């Protein structure tokens, strides 16, 4: 018993400084209601994604992402008891589509931004820490990529690789990493000059230890802020590609594709222009709030992580 108390005290002592940091971060977030709104939105989407099988039980057991369709008529049908949000062109169920589309969006966002982060950090670190020829090669590659318009390059890549969601993600990774490499390089150049890095070198630390223990932890925060902002942006780009018909296979639960279905039904018949509002508005709102949520959350991250505002 006494041992337990002692261990607990020891644990508390160890955690105290970290706890203080967390408390400070929370106090920063509390001060801006918009950040809280962003957090709320993202948590909402996360719970939708987790609860998808319960919110909309799949019709095709082994292909949950295939949107069930009710007939083959082209004209969308308005919301009803069987189709909560109505159906879109080809009688795909909008409710099912947007619910499972949330999962797709998270998958796209996290995979793409995660991969970009890894590639960007590795290349940017090499470039920033070693400099010289390595730096030249990597940075000129970055320049080349950044001189091409992102969306068009991504379209070209998807067309070349073949139309499916994996290829969309690959294309987005290929066009997305250069700004990350450049950003982290700049921060590493700054941190590299700090005395504690020099001190680590004087201690005899290896380059690997120096980069990962001393340089990166102090340089990575602007990158994380950018990444959180980019999760939304990447989903938006993927949706744009889907809208252009370069995304998921037809019938796959994906917000971009749902808007693409509704392309011909944005304006209704003469005299009733808003007849098919649900077909485009509902998936559109999902994308809007998803991207908005990440943007607000990114701002919150910036508030928390900005080294200038932190007390160091």
């Amino acid at each position, binding site marked *: 018993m006494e041992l337990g108390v002692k261990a607990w005290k020891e644990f508390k*002592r160890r955690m105290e*400084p970290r706890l203080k940091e967390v408390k400070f971060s929370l106090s920063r977030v509390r001060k801006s209601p918009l950040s809280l709104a962003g957090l709320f939105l993202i948590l909402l989407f996360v719970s939708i994604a987790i609860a998808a099988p319960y919110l909309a039980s799949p019709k095709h057991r082994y292909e949950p992402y295939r949107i069930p369709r009710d007939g083959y008529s082209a004209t969308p049908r308005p919301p009803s008891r069987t189709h909560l949000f109505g159906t879109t062109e080809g009688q795909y169920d909008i409710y099912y589509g947007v619910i499972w589309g949330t999962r797709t969006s998270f998958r796209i966002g996290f995979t793409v931004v995660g991969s970009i982060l890894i590639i960007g950090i590795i290349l940017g670190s090499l470039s920033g820490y070693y400099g010289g020829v390595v730096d030249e090669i990597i940075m000129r590659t970055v320049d080349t990529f950044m001189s091409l318009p992102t969306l068009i390059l991504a379209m070209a890549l998807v067309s070349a690789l073949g139309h499916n969601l994996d290829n969309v993600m690959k294309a987005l990774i290929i066009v997305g990493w250069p700004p990350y490499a450049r950003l982290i390089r700049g921060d590493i150049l700054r941190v590299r000059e*700090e*005395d*504690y890095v*020099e*001190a680590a070198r*004087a201690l005899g630390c290896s380059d690997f230890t120096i980069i990962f*223990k001393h340089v990166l932890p*102090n340089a990575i925060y602007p990158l994380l802020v950018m990444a959180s902002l980019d999760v939304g942006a990447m989903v938006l780009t993927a949706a744009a590609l889907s809208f252009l018909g370069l995304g998921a296979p037809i019938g796959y639960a994906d917000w971009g594709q749902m808007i693409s279905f509704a392309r011909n039904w944005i304006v209704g018949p003469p005299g009733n222009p808003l007849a098919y509002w649900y077909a485009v508005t509902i998936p559109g709102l999902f994308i809007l709030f998803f991207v908005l949520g990440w943007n607000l959350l990114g701002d919150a991250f910036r508030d928390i992580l900005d080294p200038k505002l932190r007390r160091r």
Partner: protein
Amino acid sequence: MNMNILVEVRKLKKYYAIQGGVFKKRIGDIKAVDGVNLKIRKGECLGLVGESGCGKTTLGKTILRLLKPTKGHIYFDISEEIKQEVEKLEESTDSNSQKLQELERTHDLSNFEGKRLKKLRRRMQIVFQDPSSSLNPRMLIKDIVGEPLTVHGLAKGLEKRERVINLLQRVGLSEDHLFRYPHEFSGGQRQRIAIARALATNPDFLILDEPTSALDVSVQAQILNLLQELQSDFGLTYLFITHHLLVVEYISHRIAVMYLGRIVELADTKELFENPMHPYTQALLSAIPIPDPEVRSHRTILKGDVPSPIDPPSGCVFHTRCSSAAKECEERMPDLVSFGDEHYVACYRMNHK
């Protein structure tokens, strides 16, 4: 006289290339350290004094091999015979060049790489000027002080923790500080942490790069006293780099005065303050504001600024600001010559006396 020399630097040069144009061509050099000879004896504290931009920090970092020297030798705890042999072989150029290379590879610190360098790093450490930037803000104190032990595989687990606590206690901190971040400490405490980290591997030689310049006077006194205690307790050898002459007078046994990448005067502390010979040293000493209003000293105020080390003046680098510069000063750089009792000066005016 050559007994017990721990660190010796011979004809050391460190140039930084200035690159320009589209193809990053080398268009010039910043001659930060330009031919320095220096011997540091075991157990002494050698003060290295000079104004900003005179290359004193570069010299320190080059000795520590944080920077790769452009030319010259750095010997750490090497016997006199080997140094002389290298010198002899160098003079007789092509013959035996393989032997020379072998000697340099194994004994000259300026050529060390990899494992050999890491092994030596255990024996020499550095304490930086600004303690707020020399500690990684995202590491806990226990990790900062324990890192050298891990890197050199000296201790692990409980033993490591024990040693970290010992080190902290030795520099006047306590076990309570283990789980804290650097920003929770005051400047003086941070400098204590930095000193503890430098002492972790039990080094012989410590470079102190302006360790008290960022601190307040009352804390400065604490740190200086601590450094003095540590020196006598552990038998450390110090190279104390500073621009503050009164501090260096207080702590050093000998003082070297640097100007524009060269050492212009080297003498015993007392001797230097009582009998400064180089005009630069004289000006430097007269410029110190003395904390006593009764003594309003007569000043020699130097005119102009320190020239750029990219294009240093010809001959004696000081002649542009020297009040007694003669014609020969503009032509050749005077060598560091001994004037009795371990007092070395690089000035023609002295030669003629």
